[in-house]
C-alpha cells in the first residue's frame, strides 16, 4: 500500500507542470482575441449571433424542413458546439508538434502536456459557447433534465476523442503532410454521419452499426436529451462512447510517446 502511494507520488512530475499546462492553454486562448477591439467579448457574442442565425433560418426560411423536429435551431446548435469543439481539438492538435517546437526543443517536457493545454484552450472557448447556448435555450423555454449532471462525462468523452485524434494525426502529419486535405474529407464525412442535422433514428435506419462506430451519434443524442428536450439520457451509449474515447486517447498517447521525437528532425 505504502509502496503504491510512493510510486504514485513519484509519478507526479515537477511542481510547475500543471501551471505550465494551464498557462499555455490560457495564452493560446487569449491570442485568438488579442488583436480585436472587443477582445474576449467575441467569445460570447459569436455563439449568440450564430444561434440567432440558425433560429431565423430554421424557423422562418426553412420552416417546412424542420417541421417534424421541435426546437430545430436548438437541436442543431447544441450538436454543433460539441462537434466544433471536437474538430478544433483535432485540427489544432495535429499541428501541436510543429507549433510548440520551440518548447520541445528547449526543455524536456512531457509531450502530452502540449496536447492537453491545446485542448484546454479550446475547452475555454467551448465553455463560452455552451453557456451562451444554455442561457438562450432557457429563454426559449427549455428546461433541463436532471441528467445534465452527466454533462461533464460527455464533455470529457469529446475531449478524449478530440485530443486523442489530434495526437494520432500529429504523428501521421510528420510522415505525411497531405493528411491535412484528407482530414477535411474525414471531417465532412463525420459531420454528415453524426446526426447533426437529423435525429439518430435516421442513422439507425440507414445503417445500424454506425450508431456504435461513430461515437458522435450517441454524443449528439445524449446532449439533446440533456439540453434540448430535458429527457433522460442513454447511459449505455454514454459508457460505450467514453470507452471509445479512452481507447482513442490511449492510442494517441502511445503513438506520441513513441514517435514524437521525429518531429524535431522532420518538421
Amino acid at each position, binding site marked *: 500500500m505504502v509502496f503504491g502511494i510512493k510510486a504514485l507520488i513519484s509519478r507526479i512530475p515537477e511542481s510547475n507542470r500543471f501551471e505550465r499546462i494551464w*498557462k499555455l492553454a490560457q*495564452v493560446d486562448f487569449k491570442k485568438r482575441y488579442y488583436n480585436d477591439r472587443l477582445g474576449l467579448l467575441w467569445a460570447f457574442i459569436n455563439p449568440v449571433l450564430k444561434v440567432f442565425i440558425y433560429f431565423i433560418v430554421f424557423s422562418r426560411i426553412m420552416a417546412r424542413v424542420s417541421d417534424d423536429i421541435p426546437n430545430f435551431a436548438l437541436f442543431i446548435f447544441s450538436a454543433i458546439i460539441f462537434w466544433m469543439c471536437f474538430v478544433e481539438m483535432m485540427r489544432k492538435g495535429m499541428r501541436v508538434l510543429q507549433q510548440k517546437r520551440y518548447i520541445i*526543443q*528547449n*526543455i*524536456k517536457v512531457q509531450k502530452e502536456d502540449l496536447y492537453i493545454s491545446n485542448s484546454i484552450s479550446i475547452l475555454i472557448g467551448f465553455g463560452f459557447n455552451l453557456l451562451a447556448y444554455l442561457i438562450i435555450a432557457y429563454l426559449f423555454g427549455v428546461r433541463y433534465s436532471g441528467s445534465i449532471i452527466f454533462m461533464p462525462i460527455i464533455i470529457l468523452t469529446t475531449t478524449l476523442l478530440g485530443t486523442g485524434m489530434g495526437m494520432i494525426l500529429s504523428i501521421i502529419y510528420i510522415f505525411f503532410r497531405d493528411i491535412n486535405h484528407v482530414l477535411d474529407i474525414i471531417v465532412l464525412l463525420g459531420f454528415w454521419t453524426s446526426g447533426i442535422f437529423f435525429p439518430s433514428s435516421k442513422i439507425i435506419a440507414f445503417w445500424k452499426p454506425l450508431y456504435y462506430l461513430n461515437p458522435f451519434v450517441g454524443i449528439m443524442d445524449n446532449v439533446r436529451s440533456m439540453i434540448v428536450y430535458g429527457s433522460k439520457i442513454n447511459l449505455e451509449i454514454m459508457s460505450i462512447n467514453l470507452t471509445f474515447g479512452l481507447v482513442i486517447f490511449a492510442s494517441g498517447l502511445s503513438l506520441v510517446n513513441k514517435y514524437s521525437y521525429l518531429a*524535431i*528532425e522532420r518538421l
Partner: protein
Amino acid sequence: MLSHKQNKKEIQALKDLNLKIKKGEIYGVIGRNGSGKSTLINIIMGSIPANKGSKIITRGKMMRLSLGLGVDDNLSARDNIYVNGSIIGLSFKTIGAIFNDIIEFAGLDEFVDTPVKFFSKGMKQRLMFSIAMHADADVFLLDEFFGGTGDEDFKKKSDEAFRRKILEGRTIIIVSHSMRIITKYCDRAIWLNKGKTIKMGKTEDVVTAYKQSFVKNQDS
C-alpha cells in the same frame, strides 16, 4: 534541414563519441554547419534518442537556451515572461517574485503590457536574455546563445549577469561559431566534423587546431 539518411549517419558517427562532462564544467562544442553539433545537443537533451548500445547518462534538470526562440509576437512582455518562465521550469510564485527584476534588467519598464511584435529586435533579445538569466536548471545547453545582444551597455551588463547567474556552479555546454566565446568561457572543448570527433581536449588546443584547418583549406 538534414535529411533522415544524413541524420542516421551522424548519429552512428557520434556513437564512437565518449564524452564525459564533469559537474560545474564549461564545455565547448565547435564545428562547421552540419557537423553534428545540434544532433549532439538533441541527443543530450533526450529529444532525439541515440542508437542502440549508446549510453547517455545525465544528472539534474537540463535546459537549452537559444536566443530568438520562444518569444511569441502576439503576446505582451508580461505574458511572454510567464509563458517562458514556466517553460524553463519556474513556478508562477517564483516568476511573480522576480518579475520586476526581469523587466528592469531588460529595461522594458514602460512596455510591460505591449505586444512583443511592436518591440525592436534588440528589445526582444533583451527580454529573452533577462528571462533566461533566471532559468532554474543544473545543466545548460547554450546553443548560439550569444548573438551580440543589444547595445554595448547591455552587452556589458549581460556579460556580467551571465557570469554571475548562469556560470556559477552549473554545468554548461556551449555550442558556438564564435571562437572568442568558446575560448573565453570553456575549460575543455570538442571539435566535430561531419559527425566525427576531430579533436577534443583543452580549449586552446582544440580551437587552435580548428582555426588552422581553415588556413590549410585556404592554402590548398
